[in-house]
Each structure stands twice: as C-alpha cells, then as structure tokens.
C-alpha cells in the first residue's frame, strides 16, 4: 500500500509543480510584460511588444483555469478528464 501511496504522491507532486508552480510563474511574467509595455521596468524603455507577450501568457493561464472549471463541472456529471495524445477530452466514467 505504501508503494501505491508513493505512486499517487509523485504524480500529484509532478502535476502540482507543472500547474501549481508553473502557472503562477507564467502569470508573474505576464504582469512583468505589462510593466515592460508601459515602460515601468528599470533600465528598459516602453515596448508595445510587452502587451502581446502578456496577452499570450495570460491566455495560457486563463485556458488552464477554464480547463479546471471544465474538470470540476464534468466530474459532477460523471465524466472524467482523459488525454487523447496531448489533447484533453472528457469521457464517461
């Protein structure tokens, strides 16, 4: 049973690091890109490209949040998240 527990734990840790640590970092980079676009970073001039980068980064975070909501809703209706290659899909439990 301890093996099963460790098996579950490292998967949760991996997914957690990917999403739980990765998304805040992307979000922080997004905030920084906006500061860049507005010329609010030290030693760097304003650059409109910052807004584009920020938009992309926030879109990734938003997508993950939507996937999270989708997961919770689907779970409530008896569906579960499955991976078809790299694309997420919902299948009946």
């Amino acid at each position, binding site marked *: 049973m301890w093996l099963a*527990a460790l098996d579950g734990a490292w998967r*949760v840790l991996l997914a957690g690091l990917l*999403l739980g640590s990765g998304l*805040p970092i992307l979000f922080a980079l997004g905030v920084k890109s906006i*500061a860049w676009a507005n010329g609010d*970073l030290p030693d760097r001039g304003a650059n409109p490209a910052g807004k584009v980068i920020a938009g992309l980064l926030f879109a990734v975070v938003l997508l993950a949040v939507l996937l999270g909501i989708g*997961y919770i809703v689907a779970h409530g209706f008896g569906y579960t998240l499955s991976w078809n290659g790299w694309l997420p899909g919902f299948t009946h439990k």
Partner: protein
Amino acid sequence: MSPELILLALVVVTALAFDFTNGFHDTANAMAASIATKALTPKTAVALCASLNLVGALLSVEVALTVTNAVINLQNPDGTPKPELVADGGDKILLILLAALAGAIIWNLATWLWGLPSSSSHALFGGLIGATLAGLGWGGVRWVGADGKLDGVIGKVIIPALMSPAIAMIVAMVGTHFVFKVAASLTEKYRTSGFRWGQVGAASLMSLSHGTNDAQKTMGVITLALIASGQWTDTHAVPLWVKLACGFTIALGTYLGGWRIIRTMGKGLVEIEAPQGMSADMSSAAVILASSQLGFALSTTHVATGSILGSGVGRPGAQVRWGVAGRMASAWLTTLPSAGAVAALMFVIGNALGAGYGSAVIVLLLCGAATYMFVHSRKEPIGHHNVNDEWDDAKKKKQKQPEVSV
C-alpha cells in the same frame, strides 16, 4: 410521528448542522490568502466563496452514497446498508450516524474556537470510525484496503494526510521562489494590483471544487440514513430536497465565515503579500484538482495550509511562525482520534438509553456543547472587522494568562 421518524429527523438535522460547520470551517481554505492580501474585502470574499460552493453543490449529479465505505463497513458496494444492520428497522445504523455527526460537529466547533484549521473530512471520518467501533466493534472499521489498494483508514485518510501538506508546501515554495524573482524589479503598483486577478481566479476554483466535494459527503450520509429507515430506495439518485438543503446549508456556513480560522491562516502563519497569495492559491487549486483526477484522496485544509506555509518558506526573507504551524499540525494529528472518541462516547450513552431517548440525549448534549463554545467565543470575538489586524504574539499571551490563573 413514530419514534423511527423522530430518530431519522434528528439524524437529518444533525447532518445539516455538520454541513454548516463544514462550510464555515473551510471558508479559510479558499479565501484566507485573498482576504490577507486585500485582493478581496472580507465580505466580498465570503459572498463569492459561498455562491461558488452553492453552485458546486447543486452542479453535481454524481451520487456520493458510498462516502462511508472509505473507512467503515456499514454499506454494500452499491450503497445499500448491510442487511444485518437494518434488521432492527435501521435504529442501530441511525444511532451510529447520529453519534458520528455529533462527534464531528463538536470537534469542528472546538477547533474553530481555537482558531485552528483542522480538516472537516477528518472530523467526519473520525466520528464515523469512533461510533462504529463503539457500535460494531473492531471489524466494523475498514482499516486498510484490499490487495494493497489505497483504501480504508490508512490509505484514504492517514497516508494522504501525511503527504499532502508536504506536496502542497513544495509546490507553493517553488512557485513563490520564482514569482518573487520575476517580481523583484516591479514597482509596488504592479506587485499589489497585478497579482490580484490570478489570486481571485484560483480562490474561486477552490471554492467551486469544495462545493462539489464536501456538500456531497453530507448528501451521502443523509441518503444512507433515509435508505436505512426505509424512506428512500434509489441508490442512483439523491432526493432533490437533500441536495438543495445540503447546498444551501454549506453556502450559509461559508458565508458566515469561520473568521477565527481565516485569521490564523491569513495572518498567523506568515505575512502574505499579493504575489505569494497568488502562488499559494494556485498551488492549492492545482494540487487539489490533480489529486482528485488521480484518485488520491486528500484534505483541502491540509493542502491550503501547506501551500501558505510553502509560500512563506519560498519568499526570501519572510518570517514563518513555526509555533503557529506546530499548533496546527497537532490539531491535525488529534482530529481523527478526538472526533472518534467523542462519537464513541455519544454512541455508548445513546445506546444505553435506547434509540428513542438516547438520540434525544445525544442531540441535547451536542446543543449544550455547541452553546458553551459559542458563548466562549464571544469573549474574544473575531469577525470581518478585525480579521486582518496585526498578529501580535505578545498580546495573545497576555490575554491568555488570566484564563490560566483562574
């Protein structure tokens, strides 16, 4: 009303009371960080959390009828109660459930009074285990899963409780560390307002997920009681009134907010700045959803606390109050046995008096304990007005001294 119906009604009302404490005990998990960083005002935070809990509770059509099967052997795999347990008209099963719920509520209120975020699921499972041990003996409890599967008290409750705070802490620590690296060159304006949206988003996800998970547990317990007393037969659906009652009760509890616990989590462990709050909340949301997907049962409370601690460890120069963390950890260790002991005692008292009088006495004892703790909490009230006051260790000690000397 026949005695059987009165007993059933007491179980249903007590289950809803547990659902209520479950709501206000867990507001902190989703919202403590957002309130501490002022991403949301205290009142907006509890209102948002309560609405999402309600939506989550009503959204689920899955039946959580087998919730007790994780730790005890009252039900068949399809959710119906074991036939030998309902031979007496279901009295024994109802008394076990009533004692279990009473134990869980009393422990939830006690930890609320102390401002400690303990797990409501541990309290419920502890209560079920204690009442079952008293009612059916050692064999009534499912200690370990069959064939090395993660099941039973050890696999579904104890192992995850040991691992989940550590996992959440690592995730939040890594996230916070890098977020502060990125945010180092940002001005105050970006540091505070920029991170709010991310934090509110993650906190909302946690609230929604809480509604789908925790309200379901009470629905399962009430439906089991209805089936055991012959008032309901369908094992594929929960009666609509049960679903509505559980959803609204958990939302009401959430809205009232366990301010004492919110204060400990948001101010007591570490001083939380906006970037930290976002990292902590996203870490909690990710760990909770990932473990749910991977079938690894864990407690939201343990994850949320681990994340906030991790966000303190990961931030350069932050002060973590390990004394407060230690008190929390001791509350976690004692939750299951304490709720279990109270529930076992309740069952013994109730059983000795017979199901009719016994159940009434259990409910009276529960009401007495709840009133005592509520009155006690008024001596030093904590609400939305002072939840964010500075955490003063010295002041706390000074106030405590008269109590000790009396």
